[in-house]
């Protein structure tokens, strides 16, 4: 029995990925395949072969932007987009270092920002991300331009009932 395959299937909670007959329609339509080291079809094959480390340690699972073209076109209804979410979450839960660190740092900064104010405050979120990623100076001119146009406000309205927002974060926290 292939534990990795079973674990992924259980978390997807839908069509088992053995249903894939490798027509590669997912990959033909994937807008990020050009930037991935393993295309979506290959990720399925690697899972079928139980190659956990290669999958969870890949850049692919972070580069997937969840455009859902794959699941829309898959003739066997394998939910590859959901599979990518599952793989990212498995990588986080099992402590596999994200191959694309800044993509994960962006997600973390984004969620930390919601946790703080209930809504995204773009300047605060960007500062958080930049400090975590060390990518301090990119997009500065653009940021200043947007600030001048009043698109980046430091005091955007927040959610008032923050207790309920924090409760959601606490109760969904992954061990």
């Amino acid at each position, binding site marked *: 029995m292939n534990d990795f395959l079973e674990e992924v299937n259980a978390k997807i909670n839908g069509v088992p990925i053995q249903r894939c007959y490798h027509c590669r329609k997912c990959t033909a339509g994937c807008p990020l395949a050009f930037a991935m080291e393993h295309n979506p079809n290959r990720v399925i094959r690697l899972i079928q072969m139980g190659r956990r480390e290669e999958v969870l340690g890949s850049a692919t699972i972070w580069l997937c932007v*969840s*455009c859902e073209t794959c699941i829309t076109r898959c003739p066997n209804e394998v939910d590859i987009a959901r599979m990518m979410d*599952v793989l990212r*979450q498995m990588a986080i839960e099992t402590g596999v270092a994200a191959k694309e660190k800044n993509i*994960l740092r962006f*997600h973390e900064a984004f969620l930390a920002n919601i946790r703080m104010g209930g809504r995204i405050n773009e300047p605060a979120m960007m500062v958080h*991300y930049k400090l975590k990623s060390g990518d301090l100076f990119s997009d500065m001119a653009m940021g200043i331009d947007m600030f001048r146009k009043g698109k980046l406000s430091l005091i955007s309205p927040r959610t008032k009932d923050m207790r309920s927002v924090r409760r959601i974060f606490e109760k*969904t926290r992954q061990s």
Partner: protein
Amino acid sequence: MKVSYYPGCSLHGTAKEYDLSVRSVSRALGIELEEIEDWSCCGATSAHSTNFKLSVALPARDLIAAEKKKDQDVMVPCAACFNRFKTAEHHLRNDPALRAEVEEIVGGRYQGSVAVRNPIDIIANTIGLEVLQEKVVKKLAGLKPVSYYGCLLLRPPEVCRFDDTENPVLLDRILEALGAEVRPWSFKTDCCGGSLTISKTEIVVQMVNRLMAMAREAGANCLVTACPVCMANLDMRASADAGLPVFYFTELAALAMGQEGTEEWFRLHHKDPRPLLKGLQLL
């Protein structure tokens, strides 16, 4: 008609011209917007990429708040929020165990009693294109847009079905009603790179430049979208020589209806669309 309104975080910040134009067009078409009380962020890509339950619970909090206004559809203009709301709704309706858990997390009952809708759907299918057309005082002659839906309005089809998945047409019909000369193209639902724009900018630049090249090849002089993420990427990430002006469809509706304030919104774009509009005597 009266609808609950979920602007989402973008429409209060980087996409404020979308918020202003949705409000303006809604007023003109007799759609009364009532903002969902004390709403919170939908969690966007970052929640569902890293924490499934969080990605359902955050929109569930807003859906439950919206259900206080019975039988009132929820208008969600941001494609990203719309997709998260529809996906959460899908899970809550089809997985009773998850629903019970999320209700406990959020502290409220989810009844599934309100419909989540995008303004494209509301304007085309409920208000009607004839009504829209009657309000047009300045036809957008010479404007040759391509409709750009991006990923999140129509995928996956069993969750977000209000237009064809591969070749959606409602946005084309709306723009035609405004008098624009819509160009056909095959990239209506191709991806702009979404949330990678900050963390993997170079990839997004490649994706956006390709879309711009295809729009030019289709004979377009602008792109029209209903998504703040698509707008940000198309408008700001295209290389200077590749980029075409990009509009929210509601900005063009307001322009064609002769509404005040449109020029102020266009000023907020990164790629200034005013030279194009002035050249066509639309401003």
